[in-house]
């Protein structure tokens, strides 16, 4: 196929909503999901005479993001106006940064498709304000404007066109999301739109310069981004193979139809008439300010990974999966600390919990139970109060109807039988019912023991202490 002659080139502009308590230019709350137009004031609804005042936390968070992605932090930065008309943009300009962004020239390290380390360069990170939201009017024609989101702080992280496959794009986005979560500047909740990406795609033959790119705006699902890039790559190759030129244009990805549609081409691209925001003063940062933020950066995934391997004896693979999400990693550390059994906690998280999350299409943040509850379950197993097979049932219950595992097993009657007489009674019953297996065992077939233990488990509905069962069977069989 001719496809193999083409290389995919992708660059991303990622918008992340910052998790500051208040908006970027006023003191309205940023909280998601409030009644429409309840988090607004003269500033964020652009009443005549209102003026913006830059929220210092926004600068701090952006500098944090810059440092965590190996950027140079600009000591002399400023805000600019980006002018365009749209009903969700109350001032008719967005306060953003044009030629002097806060952070420049960083990188994020990911693995390429062959597992080798690869640096994806970051061109810049700048701060800007989010726009409001248009809601279709349920009660009549037209749309309704909700300005709760107007003025919520964003950082835009612009990568160089260094990504070469959907795998790299996916790993870059996941890494970026994890970094932003680790440094606690954004919750990156994609379903709430707090992480969105503009995706720039082009293809070229290796012997030729980069091709013309198209842009897909405002994508907020990793899956859609991968699908859209694959589609767009094939489309562009098809066009080129048929002698057509790629137009520089903005496209809209339709997830249901699985294809892109043109939104606007270069000719009707807007002239944003950027100019320095005269209502705000220049952003001047001292070396000391930047160094203080650098010092306060939290432990990053790489360092946690090392610690998990060295201190808790986790494998590299396990450490990688646990640290891929800050939430999961924090959850792991808390449950480990309480139960003092880090390995068991890790196993539960990476196997059964991961499987259930995957089945339910949930993120680690959506785990309905607490680290304390998982820790208690691990401790109950360690103490022999329940078996690990009961543990799996407890976990299912924790997902369905979370409460203290001790309470669950009490209510469900899942407490392990560790009473010697009760166990002996079962063992003797099983032995008398399975004479053939006894014979087999005595004839040297060790497998028979497993069968007998299984039968005993069946009769006790999994509640018998497996260790005691084992020992008692051996004792009786040797008689």
């Amino acid at each position, binding site marked *: 196929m001719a496809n193999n002659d083409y290389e995919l080139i992708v660059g991303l502009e990622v918008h992340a909503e910052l998790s500051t308590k208040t908006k970027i230019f006023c003191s309205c709350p940023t909280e998601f999901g409030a009644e429409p137009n309840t988090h607004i004031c*003269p500033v964020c*609804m*652009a*009443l*005549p*005479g*209102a*003026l*913006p*005042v*830059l929220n210092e936390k926004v600068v701090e968070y952006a500098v944090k993001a810059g440092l965590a992605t190996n950027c140079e932090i600009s000591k002399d930065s400023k805000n600019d*106006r980006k*002018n365009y*008309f749209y*009903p969700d943009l*109350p*001032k*008719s*300009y967005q306060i953003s940064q044009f030629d002097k962004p806060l952070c420049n020239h960083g990188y994020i390290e990911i693995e390429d498709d062959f597992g080798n380390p690869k640096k994806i360069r970051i061109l810049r990170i700048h701060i800007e304000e989010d726009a409001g939201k248009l809601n279709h009017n349920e009660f009549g024609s037209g749309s309704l*404007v909700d300005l709760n989101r107007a003025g919520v702080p964003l950082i835009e992280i612009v990568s160089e066109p260094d990504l070469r496959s959907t795998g790299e794009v996916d790993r870059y986005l996941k890494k970026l999301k994890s970094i932003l979560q680790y440094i606690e500047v954004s919750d990156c909740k994609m379903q709430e739109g707090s992480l969105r990406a503009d995706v720039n795609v082009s293809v070229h033959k290796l012997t030729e310069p980069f091709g013309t790119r198209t842009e897909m705006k405002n994508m907020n699902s990793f899956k859609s981004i991968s699908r859209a890039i694959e589609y767009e790559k094939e489309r562009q190759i098809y066009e080129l193979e048929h002698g057509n030129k790629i137009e520089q244009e903005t496209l809209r990805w339709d997830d249901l139809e699985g294809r892109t549609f043109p939104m606007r081409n270069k000719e009707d691209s807007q*002239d944003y*008439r*950027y*100019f320095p925001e*005269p*209502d*705000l*003063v220049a952003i001047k940062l001292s070396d000391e300010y930047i160094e203080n933020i650098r010092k306060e950066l939290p432990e990053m995934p790489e360092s946690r990974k090392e610690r998990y391997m060295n201190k808790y004896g986790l494998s590299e693979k396990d450490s990688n999966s646990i640290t891929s999400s800050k939430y999961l990693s924090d959850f792991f550390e808390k449950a480990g600390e309480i139960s003092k059994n880090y390995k068991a906690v890790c196993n539960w998280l990476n196997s059964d919990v991961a499987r259930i999350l995957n089945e339910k299409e949930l993120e680690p943040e959506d785990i309905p139970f607490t680290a304390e509850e998982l820790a208690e379950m691990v401790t109950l197993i360690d103490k022999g109060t329940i078996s690990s097979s009961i543990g799996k049932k407890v976990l299912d219950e924790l997902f369905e109807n979370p409460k203290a595992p001790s309470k669950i097993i009490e209510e469900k009657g899942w407490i392990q039988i560790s009473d010697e007489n009760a166990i002996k009674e079962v063992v003797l019953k099983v032995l008398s019912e399975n004479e053939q297996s006894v014979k087999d065992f005595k004839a040297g077939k060790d497998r028979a023991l497993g069968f007998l233990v299984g039968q005993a488990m069946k009769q006790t509905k999994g509640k018998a202490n497996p260790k005691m069962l084992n020992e008692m069977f051996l004792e009786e069989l040797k008689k």
Partner: protein
Amino acid sequence: MESITNLTVHELVEKLKNNELTSEEITKAYIDRINEKEKDVDAFVTLTTDEALNESKKIDEERKENKELSEYAGIPIGIKDNLCTKGVKTTCSSKMLENFVSPYDATVVEKLNKEGIISLGKLNMDEFAMGSSTENSAIKITHNPWDLSRVPGGSSGGSAAAVAGNFVPWALGSDTGGSIREPAAFCGVVGLKPTYGLVSRYGLVAFASSLDQVGPITKDVKDSAMLLNIISGHDEKDSTSYDVEKKDYLQNLEKDLTGIKIGVPKEFFGEGINKEVKEQLEKAIETYKKLGATVEETSLDVAKASLAAYYIIACAEASSNLGRFDGIRYGYRAKDFNSLKELYVNSRTEGFGDEVKRRIILGTYVLSSGYYDAYYKKAQKVRTYVKNEFNKAFSKYDVLLTPVSPSTAFKIGEKCNNPLEMYLADICTVSINIASVPAISLPCGVDSNGMPVGMQLIGNRFEEEKILNVAYKFEQEIKFRENHKPTFKK
């Protein structure tokens, strides 16, 4: 009661203190005066006289009960209609905001309220402060109390006419390129444009953010110092307001002028400046020499470059600042539209007047990609140059003395059809805004028509006390108010 309304604020303050007058008597006197003369002048867009009268009674009660009150409590004022006032219309003299009521007070209005100063109403202006004659008001045309066939100047024409006509004891105006000083000159009153950043802009409907300043228009220099004392100071709601130590601008007024060096930049007296204006200023220079100041001719060649830079920067910022008037959330919305684009286009076409549209188009053009460097960026370079030239001048002189306007108040309609000629009326004032320095305008004489001639004194940044001192001593010497009064001639 002409006698009460003829008093300055510092005189009213004395009379209130000595129980010679009550706030109600003062307020009533002004309301009577408005009822008598406002129909000839049309200075107000909105009158709040009933509310003012009630407020004055309340303050008199409080004063009787020996409540702790500011010395200004119960003094009336007029407010330019581009300063937001909670519950009272703020129209900017535009159809766009004809029925707009702000839910909040501008910081300067808040400061007036805190002092117990009572607003008599909102004063007419050129639409969105764009103009030099108040003829660009979409609401009404204001007449000059000295000659009703002439303009009061602009854009704070309503404020200057109201002070000159004794409708209010003092007023707030705003100045982007001369909008306080030129109408003050045309109406024979005192107007002060403070240093950029001395007074909060929060709640001032923005025309050109990097140039706009709120300032006093008063009967005399002392009243300007008093009003500046009230409105100046850092405001955390305005990032461009400076955090400088608060001064008492009354302290320096009486200081002797011996040792004061006044520079007279010859470029401000060149081509286009009316002969009679020049004559009055030359007389003023002689007065200063008599008062013991050193007066020297100097060179400060910034006026023409500033005017060009001004119309680029001001229009660029205005084109962006006025984007919010889109018919979506508040203000005028066209009745007929079939698409979002039509909603925008029709609302703005019908809601804005010609001069506003002209400046939005100019501003949009100079910011367009491909033109930005040639216009906006170059204008910013000119701005730096002008600032440096002023710095040089202030290394030699305490204040600079120039005309305010090339002419005295012109006839209504005289320059309406020639925007360029109208723009030239700002030639002596815009460089002050470009350089962010303060300047005061005060009357120094009258021309052969009996129209007041204004003198401009420019100071270095945050040195308002110097220009107030130099202005005050002059005022004491020539006693303009005692010798000249508006005639309301038709």
